[in-house]
């Protein structure tokens, strides 16, 4: 996000002080739960219920993390999630960008119908689709494979919707000029449109990657073993269900481990990301 704008909400000292006070409060409210998760994960089990709550452990320990990595195939789950996340993101970007181009920049019969149907899939309760999808894929022997974890998720309505907005914002004259220079439609799409809308692609990449990384129910249904399962499915076995006691520190350590990659992914792309949203036609 560029900060070249002038300071609107009061240049006065009072206004600025108020803004800073509000910012501190916001940081505390949004940051504290995350920090608590971190702090708890390095507390020994006997300190977790200390009262009043302690933000610094007396005897910090990495025991919970050691338990995670020594006792569970965490690296396998990480690798699976990373492979699934990256492949899904790449596939989604490719498929969604291709689809968004004509929807954003061409008039053709059926355009409104296609848009309407894509929008309608926003509304679907996905939980319902899993049984038909599982049985369908299974009859082709595609379950428990990288295919079942990546390809079905790539028809992503949100990505198409977002990219359509981005693509619409690119001036028509550019395309006309390119075509006049003998550039094909695909040539324009590949060499001019995509490079121009990198922020949009980064935005879709973040949304897709985070969604894929955090996806639980479909990977649960679609994988059958520790070897193929993704991180959230694996981590769910740590939580402990009914009649299974659990350790709060291990739980929080697993939460930290699960959050870290997406947080890093977000921090790495966030410059593009925020600018990306700013470049959409969304704001009208």
């Amino acid at each position, binding site marked *: 996000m560029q900060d070249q704008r002038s300071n609107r909400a009061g240049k006065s000292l009072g206004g600025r002080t108020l803004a800073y006070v509000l910012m501190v409060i916001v940081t505390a409210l949004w940051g504290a739960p995350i920090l608590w998760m971190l702090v708890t994960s390095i507390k020994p089990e006997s300190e977790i219920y200390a009262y009043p709550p302690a933000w610094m452990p007396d005897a910090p320990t990495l025991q919970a993390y050691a338990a995670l990595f020594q006792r569970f195939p965490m690296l396998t789950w990480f690798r699976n999630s990373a492979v699934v996340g990256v492949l899904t993101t790449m596939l989604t970007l490719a498929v969604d960008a291709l689809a968004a181009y004509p929807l954003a920049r061409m008039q053709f019969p059926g355009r409104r119908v296609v848009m309407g149907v894509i929008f309608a899939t926003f509304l679907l*309760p996905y939980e319902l689709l899993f049984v038909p999808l599982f049985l369908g894929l299974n009859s082709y022997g595609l379950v428990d494979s990288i295919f079942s974890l990546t390809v079905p998720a790539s028809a992503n309505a949100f990505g198409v919707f977002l990219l359509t907005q981005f693509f619409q914002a690119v001036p028509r004259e550019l395309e006309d000029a390119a075509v006049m220079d003998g550039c094909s439609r695909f040539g324009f799409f590949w060499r001019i449109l995509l490079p121009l809308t990198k922020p949009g692609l980064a935005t879709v990449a973040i949304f897709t990657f985070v969604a894929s990384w955090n996806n639980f129910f479909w990977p649960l249904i679609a994988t059958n073993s520790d070897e193929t399962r993704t991180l959230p499915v694996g981590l769910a076995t740590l939580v402990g269900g009914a009649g299974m006691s659990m350790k709060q520190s291990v739980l929080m350590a697993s939460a930290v481990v699960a959050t870290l990659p997406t947080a890093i992914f977000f921090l790495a792309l966030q410059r593009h990301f925020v600018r990306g949203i700013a470049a959409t036609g969304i704001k009208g």
Partner: protein
Amino acid sequence: MTSVASRPAGRSMARRASAREGGPVRSGMTLVAYLFLSPYLALFIAFMLLPTLAAVGISFMRWDILGTPEFIGLDNYRQIFADPLFLTAIKNTFYFVFLTAIPMVVLGLALAMLLDQKLNGTAFVRTVVFLPYVVMVSTVGILWGWLFDKGTGLVNYYLTTIGIEPIAWLKDPHWSMPALAITTIWWTVNTNMIIFLAALQDIPEELHDAATLDGAGPWHRFVYITLPLLRPAMALVTALTIINGWRVFGQAYVMTQGGPEASTFVIVQYIYLTAFQNFEMGPAAAAGVVLLLITLVFSLAQMKLMKAI
């Protein structure tokens, strides 16, 4: 890469020249358009449309996943509407939408306005507010389930330091839904904030400067310049908030399992429970179709309303 391409897309220029209408129809374009669409459409039909149609079909069948489906007409719909639990779920979900919609939009805008200022540290605060977005739902549920505990939770601990009696957030049917709403706002208000931030940055600086010269105060500038220009963003944010509100599930399931006394039992949990714990796919699919219709009606109504304003 061309020299044009290496320049970042100028936002305002892009918008003014925006070809939203897409230009005139050209012969041969239809084929090209569908060629571009074909990979998406193929995946969409195979992995979205067909399963959806299957689900709609299942809503007219009796099927326990293991056996053979049997057509029973509208019986599943009759069954769910005769089920007090389903009606409770609709009522609760509506309550959740009511509790989250306004705060999510207002707070999203307020955060965006606060962090749109040219002050040191806004980038950091934006990152902090956005961070919860990347946390997975089970973690959100476990974390807030603990934060909201009456005796050991941080929420009550800090409330008591300012003299508020401890509240049994998740164990009192009156407080459970508000607690769920607070959790959801913490988790997802950032998406709304980002959309508003983007929209705010797109409002030409000159408009504010001109208004300031004319003697308009901050409030006037907000009401007469900012708000009208934010209308499209407002429409999008409201639509997304309401749709996601109707589809709430994960956090409720992890934090309260629909309790206490069914006070947080929502429609998607009804679907999940009926399909995957009672293995009655028919009524589950019927409930899914009802949810689809509800969100559709709300989205259409909301679009109409936004156009009217």
